[in-house]
């Protein structure tokens, strides 16, 4: 039974999750594009590549905006979190080997102890964000159950991955949970608030264009 589940998660489910993630992302972007054309045609007249990039560049640089400078702890943690969140799965040796075995392509991977560290950082950051949601009254006020679920969904593949790698008790079950939770997370991206991964360049870029090209002002 375990083996069948493993085979499913390792085989078809990978394709399903990748398809939902990529297809879903393309669908979300395309349908939003269509909706914008239909009801917000104004966006296309005002969006400017130069001012979009000007704004984006400030907002993807650590401390590039005043608000980031005013909240140094949040800035550092948010940047480290996002870097580790993406770098860990992409450059994990076990993942690179899996891809190598399947399609015979590979890239640089990081030493395992480094991956361990990055994983712990991601989990730590999730705890920080959860703590921030509980502790800060304004954030607590905004928070709904789904916000905690999203944090849990992000932390899950990292916790289970760490567990499985170190072969702590019941690690083979953890391995299954690891694969399943990662696949779920991937599929969640286009359809939850995680979609900021897709829409961030557009929302920021549009605000940058409005401020830069029309209002002659900075937006950072």
């Amino acid at each position: 039974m375990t083996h069948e589940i493993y085979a499913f998660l390792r085989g078809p489910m990978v394709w399903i999750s990748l398809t939902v993630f990529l297809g879903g992302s393309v669908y979300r972007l395309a349908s939003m594009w269509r909706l914008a054309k239909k009801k917000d045609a104004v966006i296309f007249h005002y969006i400017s590549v130069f001012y979009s990039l000007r704004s984006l560049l400030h907002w993807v640089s650590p401390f590039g905006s005043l608000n980031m400078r005013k909240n140094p702890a949040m800035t550092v943690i948010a940047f480290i979190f996002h870097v580790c969140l993406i770098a860990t799965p992409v450059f994990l040796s076990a993942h690179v080997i899996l891809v190598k075995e399947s399609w015979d392509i590979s890239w640089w991977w990081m030493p395992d102890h480094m991956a361990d560290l990055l994983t712990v950082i991601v989990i730590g950051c999730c705890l920080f964000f959860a703590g921030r949601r509980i502790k800060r009254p304004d954030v607590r006020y905004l928070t709904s159950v789904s916000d905690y679920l999203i944090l849990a969904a992000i932390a899950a593949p990292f916790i289970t991955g760490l567990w499985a790698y170190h072969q702590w008790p019941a690690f083979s079950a953890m391995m299954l949970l690891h694969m399943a939770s990662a696949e779920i997370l991937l599929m969640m991206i286009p359809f939850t608030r995680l979609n900021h991964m897709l829409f961030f360049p557009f929302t920021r870029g549009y605000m940058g264009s409005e401020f830069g090209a029309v209002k002659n002002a900075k937006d950072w």
Partner: protein
Amino acid sequence: MTKHSVTDVIGIPDEGIDKGAEKLTPEKITRVIRKLLDEEGGARLKVYMETCVHCGLCSEACHFYLSNDNDPKFAPAGKVKQTLEHIIKKKGKVSVAFMKRACEVAFTECNLCRRCSMYCPFGIDIAYLMLFVRRICHRLGMVPQYIQDTAHSHSATMNQMWVKEDEWIDTLQWQEDEARDEIPDLRIPLEKPGADVFYSVIGPEPKFRAQLIYQAAVIMHAAGVDWTMPATPGWDNSDMCMYTGDQEMVARLKKVHFEAAMRLKTKRIVMGECGHAFRSVYDVGNRLLGWKMPPLRLMHALEFYYELFRDKKLTVKQKYEVPVTLHDPCNVVRGGGLHEMARHVIGETCTEFIELHPNREHNYCCSAGGGVINCGPPYAKKRVIGNRVKAEQLAAAKAKGAKTIIAPCHNCHGGLEDIVKYYELDMEIKFLGDIIYECIDKGQPED
């Protein structure tokens, strides 16, 4: 600074909201909201609502939040939560009581100043979302009474203050008469075709502050500007309909304004020192009429003054010696980038300038903008309590010696006057035009 409880600023009775609510049923609300979401709720609304991760990084951008002791209800995203988030989640199935509160949030707890868009990492336009709520309220017929009255005035008279056509002309001639005591050959040219400058003002200028028209005429005369004002509707560039959610009226108003300038074949529109009017003419009304940018060259007074000094059209006789500070109005700074020009003019006319902190794009709103002051006396205290940080900011400049606050915007003037009085700051508030009028060589004949 004096402290107040926030509980006495929520749930203020307002005939416009209360009487409007009496006529509503939940079914009617649902029908109106769904229709509006369907017709006007496009990609921007959808993306903004679905992308916000509830991080709270916008909170500290808002003067209402900061001034009300970090009460989460006043955080920008908190206001969205109390209004649109619930409306969209329930697909418009919300109660009358809910809509009353939503109306209060959107009209009296947000100045649409857009400071939070500079603090949100994603650049979510929360002012746009609050305007969407106001649009819903407008369609539901529940708008605070005072601002709705000015919107009625706009639709009946094409100006904000129920000024009749003959009263307008009469006021200009009266000011011309007054000014000719000081400068005998001064004119306020009415209906002069082909003039370089079409000068437009807001309704309250002829109504309450006619001396500003006098001053503008003196500045135009001293600089030798070829200018005119229309004798027809279209002289008023103000626009409260933009803030009540009445976009159809915004388009009508701006059309009349642009057409008056075009009928006279003037080269450009110069506007008096008003922020919201600039937003309406430069950024909003033109779009509603299908113009990407205004159909003819448009200048706010700040830019016009800057040009007059840069081209040495005005000479300063005696600089203003009282130490000044500058309040950067949202709509011409965050919405027009005119902050350095303002500083240039201050440099030309004043001996000592002390910056407010934060300043330029990051300045705090006066809490009067976005139509909040126009919601009238019921909300005056709330607006002033909701901007304690502005009082603290001004007090810090005062401690460094600033005695005069320059606020190149009508709404800012009103808002800051209330703040200065309430917090006993004892500072004087002036338009930049007041300072220029005092300082320049007016070209009076020698006695």
